[in-house]
């Protein structure tokens, strides 16, 4: 089972090593780990996707909280959350396939960010399964290269679905 854990950590050197080292030493299984700044310059947020059962997850949470520079640990289990991944993907796109590809990009609400003789580079964001689905539809054309950020997440404060109506591909989360 995949779980999203979010940790507020002190923004100072060595913190990532402390956290990553703990995960490795305790043989926890990380799917992705994202670090970024927050509104508070003294704090960064780590969003970690962990694979494991409830027992493993409880240990992950506790061990993470024990790491000295980790200020707060949140686990989004049982809560509605918004979870997003960002991807850059370069797809080979010979002129005769371009319009086909462009309509796919449109369907996934992707953005063309670079275009060359033989490829297009696309920016796509969304829940993980949307990203996976887009990768799958791109495969037949040939993927030149691909980079993903890993998941970031936040709990929803309201039950209301704030997404614009046309983002039908977004439905898989929450």
């Amino acid at each position: 089972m995949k779980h999203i854990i979010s940790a507020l950590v002190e923004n100072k050197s060595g913190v990532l090593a402390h956290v990553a080292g703990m995960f490795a030493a305790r043989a926890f299984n990380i799917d992705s780990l994202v670090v970024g700044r927050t509104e508070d310059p003294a704090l960064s947020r780590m969003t970690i996707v962990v694979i494991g059962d409830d027992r493993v997850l409880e240990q992950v949470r506790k061990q993470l909280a024990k790491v000295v520079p980790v200020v707060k640990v949140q686990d989004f289990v049982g809560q509605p959350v918004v979870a997003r991944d960002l991807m850059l993907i370069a797809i080979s796109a010979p002129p005769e396939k371009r319009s086909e590809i462009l309509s796919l990009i449109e369907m996934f609400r992707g953005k063309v960010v670079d275009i060359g003789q033989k490829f297009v580079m696309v920016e796509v964001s969304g829940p993980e399964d949307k990203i996976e689905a887009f990768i799958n539809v791109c495969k037949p054309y040939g993927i030149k290269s691909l980079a993903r950020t890993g998941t970031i997440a936040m709990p929803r404060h309201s039950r209301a679905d704030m997404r614009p109506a046309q983002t039908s591909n977004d439905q898989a989360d929450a």
Partner: protein
Amino acid sequence: MKTKSRASARTAGKPSIETGAQIIVDTLIEQGVDTMFGYIGGVVIPLFDRLYDAPINFIVPRHEQGGCHMADAYARASGKVGVVLATSGPGACNLVTGLATAMMDSVPMVALTGQVRTELIGNDAFQEADTTGITRPVTKYNCIVKDVKDLARTIREAFHIASTGRPGPVLIDLPVDVEVAKFNTDGPAEMKLPGYRIRTKGHARQISTAAKAINKSKQPVLYVGGGVITANAGKELSAFAEKAHLPVTMTLLGLGSYDQRKAESLDMLGMHGSAYANYAVQQCDLLIAVGARFDDRVTGKIETFAPNAKVIHIDVDPASISKNVGVDIPVVGDAKVILKALAREVEYQERKKWFDKIAEWKKKFPFRYDQNSSTIKPQYVVEELCRQTKNEAIVTTGVGQNQMWAAQFYRFFKPRQFISSGGLGTMGFGLPAAIGAQIAKPNETVIDIDGDHGFNMTMTELSTAIEHKLPIKICILNNGYMGMVRQWQELFYGRRYSKSYLKNPEYEALAKALGAVGMTVDKKADVPKAVKQMLKEKQPCVVDFRVEPEENVWPMVPAGKSLDEMSGLDILERLI
């Protein structure tokens, strides 16, 4: 915490500009450090220069690992934070085993390491090692100080982290340019640890729930680990156990928390624990764990551990709870505080049937050895040590059979009396640990019950003991073998003693060559008078007891078996 530096107090008005090295020494003294262990090297010369006339008793080991174990045992014996200092690169690397040992056993320590100049870090400079990288998994916390203004604060934080919550070693890496940099120390340098919180009090409702379960239990067992000793909760533990009338078993590191001379003591449990403790745990209806962590050497096969028991777990480390064994009533907090609160809520219960059963097991399966043998049985030596020191000595150990016999046959009664590497099982711990303990407790008898091969690993520290005229007693239970390994090879590998036998030196001659007292005892009849003589010595004394080479430690729960599936009970029974 707001602390003005000593210098600023002296020269009010003038700004106090000090070097990093001086700030380090001042802050150590402010933290109550009067003893430390360490070894010099290029990048820590500025710091050693400031230590030259500081009011700190500074012990130089012969190897940094020894120094680290000394600081560790100093902490275990005194309850204070042990401090060790090493140079960069090789010096820092030599601390690793000692830090891991302290980490596994939750010992409060601060390690300071020198580092190459800040601008050289990452360049493979001379004697550079990625010390924080290497030691991160074996410390509770570590960091490097790259700016002199952070020094005092970081050192205060290190002492706080090392000594609170579940204690552990904290390492600070100190680039040499930070040691020589100058800084005005008049400003505040308060701790900033937003991510470090400890729960002490324990949840009142959980405590009441626990007390109710205890009052209801017909067959309880109190299972005590080193956490009780760390928390200085020995008195509270005994008071609680007596008020509720509970049988008490201890882990290796828990020994000393409860008086083993009492009828309610079940002594040590686990792989080489007593049969009566292991049976009691397997048959109890309530297991009350305090400051213990359900280590695999304690539980045996985890799926069948204490199968009928409800489990109460009192621990300061929330991550210890339900890590290995599911817990029904967790209480997170300081053992001392919680045991006091619990004692108020529990009632005395007779539990006659349960105690009768325990008494029967105790009678049937005590720790035993062949008292009629013509050879020196190692257990006999330990018993004689216990008898002649009237249970009062501080005992350190090596690892292996010697350690188990010390745990089985010396009967402890007060906390901080038994000092042993439990979690990591570090051979070579015994001698440096005896040195650290003797320095912490100069007026007590300190005995290292060691194995021949464990002693071989760190025997160079004999020079340190001699230099400081420490009256430590080193009792080598010399079986010629790496006995514990040989025992496994005998039992599980068809007696193929692969590389578990080495030629040993003549320890008596060796001790004398270094300037210590040396003795060899190879006759059973000579054991009592050798022990007597040893106890009289005022300088380090090494006694080479030539014990039965192939004696085994019984009982034994083989790996993967349940606690009540002990081997060797038949052998013990035949000895009656």
